[in-house]
């Protein structure tokens, strides 16, 4: 079912827990060397989507297929290691599998913390620890690297360094990368596809490379501008605080799941106009029609 080139393929995936749809209608693929960034506010289903992609959560609808024997490297979001656990950076590297010492040293060298190999992980700074976790995932030679909010709690220059590092890891190993970020506007420049989630796919597209734009060069600085990119959302609706979805006048309104928990009685707010339809929007429409019939 999976094309030879795709590591993960999701189509029409929805996950339901406790009678509520956490996320619905998710379609995307990741192929080797590709970077997919999932963005969205808290509770929008980013982590659920990523977990479903790698099989930690079961999809309640739709199809998820993965390449056989997919090796995954996982960089978790928050990691609080009890200080009673004596864990050096070097020991962290072999947490889920033995690795040759030379490759561990190489990975630590690559992320720039070779000098901290024998330090206890509890003594690392946020950025150093994030690098250690990346080296750990990298030394597994994964086909697919999952990074859950890797730049959270890291300052601006640290963020750029980490994105640089992710790019290097991709270039060096050729792995596919699934990045989760809560930053709705600034993404890693190397991202091939941005997917904006909020219970469903709100919009998707490629980020705008801003490296050449003088305004952004001034705003970000030359180095940052080549690492970061701006993602312009193409939403046809807004999510209200009470969970309802408000559709903007003059936009295509195909993101309606009558039973997905995001829509209560708000039929009056829907304005069906076809003139603003983009190619992506049409794709969604097709995908969602199926749900209407199924539901």
């Amino acid at each position, binding site marked *: 079912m999976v094309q030879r080139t795709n590591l993960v393929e999701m189509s029409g995936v929805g996950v339901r827990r406790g009678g509520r749809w956490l996320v619905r209608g998710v379609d995307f693929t990741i192929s080797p060397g590709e970077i997919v960034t999932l963005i969205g506010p808290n509770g929008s289903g980013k982590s659920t989507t990523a*977990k479903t992609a*790698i099989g*930690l959560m079961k999809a309640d609808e739709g199809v998820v297929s993965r390449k056989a024997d997919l090796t*995954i*490297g*996982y960089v*978790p979001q928050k*990691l*609080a*290691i*009890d*200080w*009673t*656990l*004596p*864990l*050096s950076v070097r*020991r*962290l590297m072999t*947490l*889920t*599998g033995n690795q040759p010492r030379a490759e561990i040293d190489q990975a630590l060298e690559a992320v720039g913390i070779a000098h901290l190999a024998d*330090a*206890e992980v*509890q*003594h*690392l*700074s*946020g950025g150093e*620890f994030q690098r250690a976790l990346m080296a750990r995932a990298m030394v*597994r030679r994964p086909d697919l690297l*999952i990074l859950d909010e890797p730049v959270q709690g890291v300052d601006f220059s640290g963020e750029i360094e980490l994105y640089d590092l992710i790019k290097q890891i991709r270039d060096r190993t050729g792995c596919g990368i699934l990045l989760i970020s809560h930053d709705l506007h600034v993404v890693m420049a190397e991202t091939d596809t941005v997917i904006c989630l909020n219970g469903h796919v709100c919009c998707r597209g490629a980020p705008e490379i801003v490296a050449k734009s003088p305004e952004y060069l001034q705003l970000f600085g030359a180095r940052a501008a080549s690492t970061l990119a701006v993602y312009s959302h193409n939403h046809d609706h807004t999510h209200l605080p009470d969970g309802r979805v408000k559709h903007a006048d003059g936009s295509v309104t195909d993101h309606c799941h009558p039973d997905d928990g995001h829509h209560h009685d708000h039929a009056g707010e829907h304005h069906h106009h076809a003139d603003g339809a983009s190619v992506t929007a049409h794709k969604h429409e097709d995908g969602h029609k199926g749900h209407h019939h199924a539901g």
Partner: protein
Amino acid sequence: MLDDFFTRALLAGIGVAITVGPLGCFIVWRRMAYFGDTMAHSALLGVAIAFLFDINLMVGVFVVAALVSSALLLLQRRQSLSTDALLGILSHSTLALGLVMVAFMTWVRIDLMGFLFGDILAVSRTDIAFIWGGGALVLAGVAWLWRPLLASTVNAELAEAEGMHPERARVAFMLLMALLIAIAMKIVGILLITSLLIIPAATARRFSGTPEMMAVMASLIGVVAVVSGLFGSLQFDTPSGPSIVVAALALFLVSQIAPVVRRSGPQPQEGGRR
């Protein structure tokens, strides 16, 4: 040699101390002290049931402790009460149930103090065989589960994403705990088992650079505590179970005062920014 009650006590105590070290480390790392306490308390219910059905004490204790921990796992999934409250309910109700049941069984004479605080001086050859046999089983299980347990202690999602089965490891860990409690009950007693799990592991932290080393150190420190506690109890004519715990406490206090061998301290994420 085994004719001497004191030699038997030493052998039994050392066997338990070696077994308890690695499990105690996981209890400390995963902050499961109250969980260990709950399983230990349920042992008295196991004792009562063993007497009621006239089965082997260790078997009764193992079965009840395993059942209580699976009940806890199921209740946690329902997410109605916090784990803390659930543990409180299970811990004290199983202890109380055991005490009440024992009181009803007027036809058996049960030395309640022996079960609550240990009766190491009364261990038989069979007890020693059970302790060393069961202990070897527990240690083999821990060795077998070491990697998934350690990985899920660091982060369960990470372990699962990278092909391990943290949930399976967790269930197996609970069974090992139940087995440990069954064999350790006679040494320090139901109320003091947790101390033998936690104090040697906490003492070992100071002197260990890797998780594996800490597990071995915890076993060694446990052995020292058992031996010195038993000799102390002989010397000062004090109850043996509590004497072992006091010896473990003394070692812990000394380790805290002793000069720091390697840098460590309760300041995660700070203090070490190079």
